[in-house]
């Protein structure tokens, strides 16, 4: 599996508008819901916000990766967005966040969940990749960039 395998054009947004962290996460989950893999939207929101309460998922470099695990999905769900304007995410480097990747996993698929988290953070950590993403005009281009960037990586 690759990160780009869990994305599709309808769960990617460019210029997402959100005023704060809570609104951005809610919008991301609504976006992820378009995948049709979510069984219970409320339970998914609950697990993401629960996880966020423990340690912020704003991992620095303008990137946040809110995530959670629940059985109320049929398969691992992802969503990605570039925000119209950066917001505060209580990030670990105290910088504002511009990119958000949402990942919902299952307890039973912990192995894949961890590997995806690591892969996503590795991709987003690359300055060149983030710059390229900023030039993307629509979700189609974003997905294409993810695919290209992941070419050199093995399947996880």
């Amino acid at each position, binding site marked *: 599996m690759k990160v780009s395998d869990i994305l599709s054009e309808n769960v990617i947004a460019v210029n997402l508008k959100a005023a704060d962290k809570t609104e951005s996460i809610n919008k991301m989950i609504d976006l992820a819901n378009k995948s049709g893999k979510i069984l219970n939207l409320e339970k998914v929101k609950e697990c993401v916000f*629960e*996880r966020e*309460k*423990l*340690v*912020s*998922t704003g*991992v*620095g*470099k303008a990137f946040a*990766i809110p*995530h959670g695990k629940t059985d109320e999905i049929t398969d691992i769900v992802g969503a990605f967005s570039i925000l119209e304007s950066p917001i505060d995410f209580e990030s*670990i*480097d*105290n910088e504002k966040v511009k990119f958000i990747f949402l990942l919902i996993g*299952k*307890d*039973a*698929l*912990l*192995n894949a*969940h*961890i*590997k995806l*988290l*690591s892969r996503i*953070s*590795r991709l987003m*950590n690359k300055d060149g990749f983030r710059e390229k993403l900023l030039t993307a005009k629509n979700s189609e281009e974003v997905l294409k960039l993810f695919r290209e960037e992941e070419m050199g990586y*093995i399947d*996880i």
Partner: protein
Amino acid sequence: MIIFEYILLLISVLILVSIIMTKLSNNLGLPSLLIFLAIGMLAGTDGPGNIYFDDFRLSQAIGVVALVFILFSGGMDTKWQCIKSAMSGALKLSTLGVVLSALIIGIALYYIFSFPLFEGLLIGAIISSTDSAAVFSILRSKSLRLKGNVRSLLELESGSNDPMAIFLTLVLIEAVKFQGFDLLNFVFFFVMQFGVGAVVGIGMGKLLVIIMNKLKLPNEGFYSVFAITYSVLVYSVTAILNGSGFLAVYLAAVVIGNSEFVQKKSLLRFFDGIAFLGEVTMFLTLGLLVFPSQVLNVVLIGLSVSALLIFLARPLSVFLSLMFSKYKFREKVLVSWVGLRGAVPIILATFPITANLQNGSYYFNIIFFVVLTSVIIQGWSLPVVARALKLLLPESKVKKIPIELDAEMSKSSDLVDIIVPDGSPVTGKPLAELGLPEGCLITVIYRDDEYIIPSGSTSLEGGDAIIMLLKSEHKQKVTEIFRKPL
């Protein structure tokens, strides 16, 4: 009367010696089942061990139980995706392929060696199914990874062609006995074998997943015991309902292996062990059962049947069955070459004896010889052939999470997955010096596609994904530790 303790002593010594000898078979690149057979034969009447054993019924029983475990373990390891792509090919091989193989052998024996037609066909039928124990044990050995879905095809075939072979064998035993048979009756029998086997197998597999997840057992070891007993239940229920028990066990295991439930990892490991024990015991027993001096009497006819099977019946039946499928020529060649015979034919070969057919033990010896040569020639040369056909994969290293999370634990929010930010103050320092609060534990680190079990001297790097046990009252403290100073 032999004292019970002596029997136990004997069994344990034989099994232990067999396990130790697998090192030898590994070095020689030999299928281990061959070593087990050899040890059984050496321990038997004609060997230095001089143990007299000719209990065909007991051998049949041991063989059936062992096969249940082997199929269950093999099925649990089979990925659903592989099955989907290999399904149609495997179905053709395990139905049409089996019939063709039996027919070709039977007709050849009739014309070349003037066997009575039904008896030739009977021998053909008994050796018509590839053996899952042999195929799994050879294909699953570490050094051999096949490209594409040839492996799934072969495994699926070997797991599903026993009903057809058993069916043909039973029909032909009747035919030899009474010089004819009631076709309609046997078509019904066949449909029952397949239909009931599939329905009960899939149904009971799904049921087990539900039970395992609902059942909160006090001891995690109980899950394995529960599952192993359940596999025997699947076999017996299906067989009593006139279905194919082997098919049901295999399908149930596939369903289970592709579902998620608590204690799955320990279950897989446990079944690996049990399947291996089954394999050792079964082949030892079969080695003991045979009288090598009698097998020597059938060398000529045995070699001929082997040659017919390996070079004519198997390739022809494979190429005819897969005529309209997407497999490449060299893949079909490989499939033809992995026509490994094993325990099922030997167990089936005891059927004519227990059915009191006149030439029963003669057939048994021929079949034993054929299986032996098939495993030696095809099993031993398989890696070479696969390499020559360019169907071998380089060794891959897909890493699995090395810990198993308890049902209770993973439900609690206290187990947090954290990504270590680049430039976070925690990087580059030994974990012991981070000052993590009491009760916080970094259980595993995932870095560069590897899982690392940390110790106090391990240090974190930016981009690591870690799984941490965290008491919620400490979250503030932990956040501060991970956070970059302002």
